[in-house]
């Protein structure tokens, strides 16, 4: 009797509607918990890839040094102004191509003309103008969401002084702690200005013996992200969308190393400075076009001179110190850790960062 009754009760027992709803709600909450974790795992994977690319650039730079005894120049620009001169306008990114398994591309470039030069300019560019549209995975950080190419002076594409497609980069060389004038005029020749005490400079190639601060204590290459030009709350321009792998020219046909504005071509297309904050605010005052920045939460990766890759916090000690011409100049400090890391011979101690 008892057994029969219990069997009957069991066969009638089911979940009530409320119980089912609660179970579904809990499952929904658990899924909601999991989804952000999946997104974070994706970003972690992208960050790893980004870091690996930087390491590859480091190996390429060191292989370059093994062959040439020096680091590549930041930018070649041999005549003051923006005149079109043989072989001007090429950046460090083009120099290390053979060491990134891109010897084929390197050999096709004609370094006897400017980077935008085309043999038959027009609808279908040829020569350098076609080749500089080649995006390279080694220069692409997956976290840096951007187009692979960008138009540059497109109205002058037919004359070889502009292009409809320039390959963009996520990695810029380090040119020093002060982001003012990137080069100075010495007669007719541009030379690195006194404040440019970073590893990549105009027309000069440095070697390890120049890095008196110790190669593990100085930045070689850092991350940038594509920031479309816009205006901030005070109607002032900001942005960082001219980040080119191979080189640049201006509408005059040559490079112009002393340009460093938002809407300019210049040194800042290939190298950056640490005067302004890492991952700074989207304002004119943040001077994003000359600074390092990334899409990673909390900082960005930097390749050090010794080939190691470090993640630098955006809250690193930083004084945003401007260059004082002097005498006495403040090229040897005092300034904060972030700027010290960019100077290769500032003589200031870098504690752990």
């Amino acid at each position, binding site marked *: 009797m008892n057994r029969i009754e219990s069997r009957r009760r069991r066969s009638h027992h089911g979940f*009530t509607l409320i119980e089912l709803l609660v179970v579904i709600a809990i499952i929904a909450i658990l899924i909601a918990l999991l989804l952000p974790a999946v997104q974070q795992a994706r970003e972690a994977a992208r960050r790893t890839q980004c870091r690996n690319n930087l390491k590859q650039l480091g190996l390429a730079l060191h292989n370059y040094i093994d062959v040439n005894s020096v680091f590549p120049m930041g930018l070649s620009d041999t005549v003051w102004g923006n005149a079109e001169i043989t072989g001007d306008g090429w950046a460090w990114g083009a120099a290390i191509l053979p060491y990134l398994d891109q010897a084929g591309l390197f050999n096709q470039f004609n370094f006897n003309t400017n980077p935008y030069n085309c043999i038959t300019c027009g609808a279908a560019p040829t020569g350098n103008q076609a080749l500089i549209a080649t995006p390279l995975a080694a220069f692409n950080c997956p976290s840096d969401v951007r187009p692979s190419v960008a138009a540059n002076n497109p109205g002058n594409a037919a004359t070889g002084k502009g292009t409809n497609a320039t390959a963009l980069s996520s990695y810029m060389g380090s040119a020093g702690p002060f982001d003012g004038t990137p080069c100075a005029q010495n007669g007719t020749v541009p030379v690195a200005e006194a404040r440019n005490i970073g590893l990549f400079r105009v027309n000069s190639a440095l070697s390890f013996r120049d890095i008196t601060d110790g190669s593990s204590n100085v930045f070689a290459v850092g991350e940038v992200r594509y920031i479309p030009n816009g205006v901030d709350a*005070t*109607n002032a321009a900001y942005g960082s969308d001219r980040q080119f792998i191979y080189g640049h020219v201006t509408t005059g046909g040559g490079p*112009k190393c002393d340009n460093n504005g938002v*809407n300019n071509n210049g040194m800042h297309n290939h190298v950056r400075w640490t005067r302004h904050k890492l991952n700074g605010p989207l304002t004119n*005052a943040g001077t994003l076009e000359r600074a390092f920045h990334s899409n990673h939460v909390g900082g960005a990766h930097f390749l050090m001179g010794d080939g190691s890759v470090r993640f630098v916090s955006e809250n690193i*000690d930083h004084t945003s110190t401007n260059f004082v011409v002097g005498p006495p100049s403040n090229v040897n400090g005092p300034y904060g850790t972030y700027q010290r890391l960019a100077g290769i011979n500032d003589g200031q101690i870098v504690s752990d960062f």
Partner: protein
Amino acid sequence: MHGSSLFFLVASVVTIGFVSGCGSRGGPPLGMVTGTVTLNGEPVSGVNVVFVPEDQGSPSYGGTDENGVYRLMFNQKRAGAELGTHHVLIENREPETDDSGKPIDDTPIVKIPKKYQQPGELTADVGSGRNNIDFDLEADTKQSSNATRTASK
């Protein structure tokens, strides 16, 4: 049956509590900073304001609008500046130039005297919560070179 549904309800409430309770923002504590920059009593538009912590820390940036009002940003998401004493730099904004390096806009820019663009002349204390910090600058031609600063919380 009542007992089990009650258990489910309690479990779900606890779970929701855990989900909504675990949120934290990275970075140091900040105080919100706004204010007005004037030069000889006139509001200055189009200059950049930089707060650099006197001790170790990371700077905040802002620019003045047409009324000379600035609002500091610490990074892309967070407004404000680190707590404590700051060196304040007030810098001329560089003119926007075209490809050849010529300025696009010909409207004259108010020149901030050099001393305000270097650390040492201006300081400010940032406390937690809202800070209203005004800067009254004096042009170089005048005899007295000390800027007066009024700070109120």
